[in-house]
């Protein structure tokens, strides 16, 4: 690997949003009062656009280089040096992070613009944009940080912003509880992440190359081979630790529980943080450390299994939800599961590809749902919507396109990327037909619940009350334009990653310097085409069932929901009771432990302390003197030090002075007796 090219503009990609956040955070309240909301949004959006332009410049700079030299680095200063630990604050761009910064700044910028309209009536406008900018900063730090610790800063930083934005309307208890849940569950993941860093660092350090920088880890990755800890491979354990972090951030089993609740935040937040960017951090991290994961087949297996399990699991829950955003939330979890499936079969490029297309269509879906909620006056229950197609044409069309994309309709972005993952799951060395077939089932479920949503919201007759119907309106331009751009992206983004059958993927080629050549897949076009048709067919079945149920009304949903006495439906509808189980075991358990600890403090340790204090007090007469000093409160005596001393003197006098004297006398007598007995 050659020495990367040093630049000095990468830092601004990351720092510009921070500047925006700092300005709005410190002065926002005043500025908003004095100059209105326009200035606030300008301060917030300009840096993001600036970052976007710089990201484009970085992209061009990369393209201009030879593929194997595509690295740009911008080193600021040494952050921590202690012993063999040496951490720089440095940002780097390679083809992988270039994709990520474009997604973050590009889609992030659109969502910023959308928010101008969406948040327009909120008094805490400045606070919203502060956190949105801060989030952009943290996310950019996450994807451009050149070492694990710096990435960890971004990793926790996005968690913080997510927490603050979920609980944005903090006066409602439900929102803040959801924020707490998100942060704490993420902390569990971070706990694993940081342990992974420690393990990698020390294992390399024992061989003289302690480092946390990605490039160095890659250079010395071979040293991790054959290292063992607790009877397992270091690479396996470290990647598993890191994967715990990924399950937290990217909402995979078992730490996915926070994401559905996170929908309490404003909708642009759900789009930006909980769909397009932050939740994909786990996938990015695995792709970034692909060389480690490739060394640990066991971990890859775990990743793939958890990915596909989450994809199915979340999809089943999404079938039954009625809240427009919750359906999308479970769909996000499910789609993230696909990405992990891709990563788990070592098809990192496919995972990142899906990450990118997903960012487009899921952001579009969320923003569309935001537009719907906006029009419905805050209503989120799909049971009360319907027939919005005519009232909101832009929203409808963009939403529909995104639904087509996520359902995997041929020639849309979602089709290409999902198919790439499924194909890899089937054909890669780590894949298997079982993984593939589970993935295909999930795709069918996805098609069902997404079309169900589309039909429930936009088709049929309106089920809203009269008042709401009258106020139905299309959203302002500032909201619809981003929708249109995203919808176009949902289609177009797929075309840069065509399957082998249709001429091969430019996207894969672009990422080749990072992941190496995608393993030669027995260029058998036959199976690929066949599998593709299979998955499209399954998705079509999903679509038809939804069509029959919710458009034609030919098929009563109860036919399915009452299967197995309705138990299955209740299980799905109540999200497998996972929240309740976690609450009972972890939350209650911890609180129980906490109370036990406090009880021990109060009743056992303090009992001993107080007991010994009391005993001392009884035994020692002199303690009486001591008490007099304290208990009598020598307060007024302090007016004058001399007077103070006098006051004490008096109080000591008025105590049982005789007792003291007798005690002293007794002691002296004893001393004399002892002396007389033993000295002569």
């Amino acid at each position, binding site marked *: 690997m050659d020495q990367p090219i040093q630049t000095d503009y990468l830092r601004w990609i990351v720092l510009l949003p921070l500047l925006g956040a700092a300005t709005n955070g410190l002065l926002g309240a005043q500025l908003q009062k004095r100059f209105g909301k326009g200035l606030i949004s300008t301060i917030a959006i300009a840096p993001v656009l600036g970052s976007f332009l710089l990201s484009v410049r970085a992209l061009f700079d990369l393209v201009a280089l030879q593929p194997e030299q595509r690295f740009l680095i911008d080193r600021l200063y040494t952050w921590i040096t202690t012993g063999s630990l040496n951490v720089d604050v440095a940002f780097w761009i390679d083809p992988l992070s270039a994709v990520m910064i474009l997604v973050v700044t590009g889609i992030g910028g659109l969502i910023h613009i959308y928010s101008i309209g969406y948040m327009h009536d909120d008094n805490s406008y400045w606070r919203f944009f502060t956190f949105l900018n801060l989030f952009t900063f943290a996310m950019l730090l996450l994807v451009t940080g050149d070492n694990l610790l710096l990435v960890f800063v971004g990793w926790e930083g996005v968690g913080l912003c997510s927490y603050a934005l979920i609980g944005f309307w903090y006066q409602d208890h439900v929102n803040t509880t959801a924020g707490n849940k998100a942060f704490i569950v993420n902390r569990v993941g971070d706990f694993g992440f940081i342990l992974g860093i420690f393990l990698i660092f020390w294992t390399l350090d024992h061989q003289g190359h302690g480092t946390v920088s990605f490039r160095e880890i890659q250079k010395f990755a071979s040293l991790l081979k054959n290292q063992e800890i607790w009877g397992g491979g270091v690479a396996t354990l470290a990647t598993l630790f890191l994967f715990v972090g990924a399950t937290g951030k990217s909402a995979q089993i078992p730490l996915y529980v926070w994401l559905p609740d996170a929908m309490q935040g404003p909708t642009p937040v759900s789009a930006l943080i909980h769909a397009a960017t932050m939740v994909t951090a786990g996938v990015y991290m695995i792709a970034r450390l692909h060389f480690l994961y490739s060394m640990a087949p066991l971990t890859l297996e775990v990743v793939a299994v958890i990915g596909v399990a989450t994809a199915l699991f979340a999809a089943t829950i999404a079938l039954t939800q009625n809240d427009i955003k919750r359906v999308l939330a479970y769909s996000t979890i499910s789609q993230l599961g696909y990405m992990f499936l891709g990563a788990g079969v070592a098809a990192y490029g496919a995972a990142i590809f899906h990450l990118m297309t997903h960012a487009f269509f899921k952001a579009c879906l969320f923003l569309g749902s935001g537009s719907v909620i906006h029009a419905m006056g805050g209503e989120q229950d799909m049971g009360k919507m319907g027939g919005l197609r005519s009232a909101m044409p832009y929203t409808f069309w963009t939403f529909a396109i995104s639904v087509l994309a996520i359902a995997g309709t041929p020639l849309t972005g979602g089709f290409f990327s999902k198919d790439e993952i499924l194909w890899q799951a089937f054909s890669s060395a780590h894949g298997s037909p079982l993984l593939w077939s589970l993935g295909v089932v999930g795709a069918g479920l996805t098609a069902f619940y997404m079309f169900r949503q589309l039909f429930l919201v936009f088709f049929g007759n309106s089920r809203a009350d009269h008042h709401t119907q009258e106020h139905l309106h299309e959203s302002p331009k500032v909201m619809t334009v981003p929708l249109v751009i995203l919808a176009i992206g949902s289609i177009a983004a797929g075309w840069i990653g065509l399957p082998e059958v249709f001429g091969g993927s430019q996207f894969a080629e672009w990422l080749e310097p990072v992941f190496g050549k995608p393993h030669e897949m027995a260029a058998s076009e036959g199976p690929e085409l066949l599998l593709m048709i299979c998955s499209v067919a399954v998705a079509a079945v999903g679509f038809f069932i939804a069509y029959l149920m919710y458009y034609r009304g030919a098929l009563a949903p109860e036919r399915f929901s009452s299967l197995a006495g309705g138990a299955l439906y209740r299980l799905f509808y109540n999200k497998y009771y996972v929240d309740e189980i976690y609450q009972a075991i972890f939350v209650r358990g911890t609180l129980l432990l906490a109370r036990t600890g406090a009880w021990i403090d109060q009743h056992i340790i303090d009992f001993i302390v107080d007991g010994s204090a009391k005993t001392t007090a009884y035994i020692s007469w002199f303690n009486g003197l001591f008490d007099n000093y304290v208990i009598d*409160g020598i307060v007024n005596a302090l007016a004058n030090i001399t007077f103070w001393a006098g006051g004490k003197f*008096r109080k000591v006098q*008025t105590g049982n002075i005789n007792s003291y*004297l007798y005690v002293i006398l007794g002691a002296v007598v004893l001393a004399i007796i002892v002396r007389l007995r033993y000295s002569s």
Partner: protein
Amino acid sequence: MAIGLTHYLVIGAILFSLGLYSVLTRRNAISILMGVELILNSSNINYVAFSHFSSGNVEGQVYAIFVIMLAAAEAAVGLAIVLAIFQIFHTIDVEAAETLKE
């Protein structure tokens, strides 16, 4: 028997005991102070006596003077307190004052 150290020490001991008795039994603050003076005097006698018979230098006397000085300070402050108490409680019986403790 020639007058020696022992005689002085015995005088000191007797004075000390009498002073202590005063302090132990009296309820009148001024009497207690007088008892304290007796005790201090007894210790001074010991200092000077040892200085004379045992060490042969005058350091003991220096200590005695310090004690006298302290006694003076103590008497001044102590009596001022007694007067203050008297002003407030109209008695200088220490037990009576005790019941009025804050």
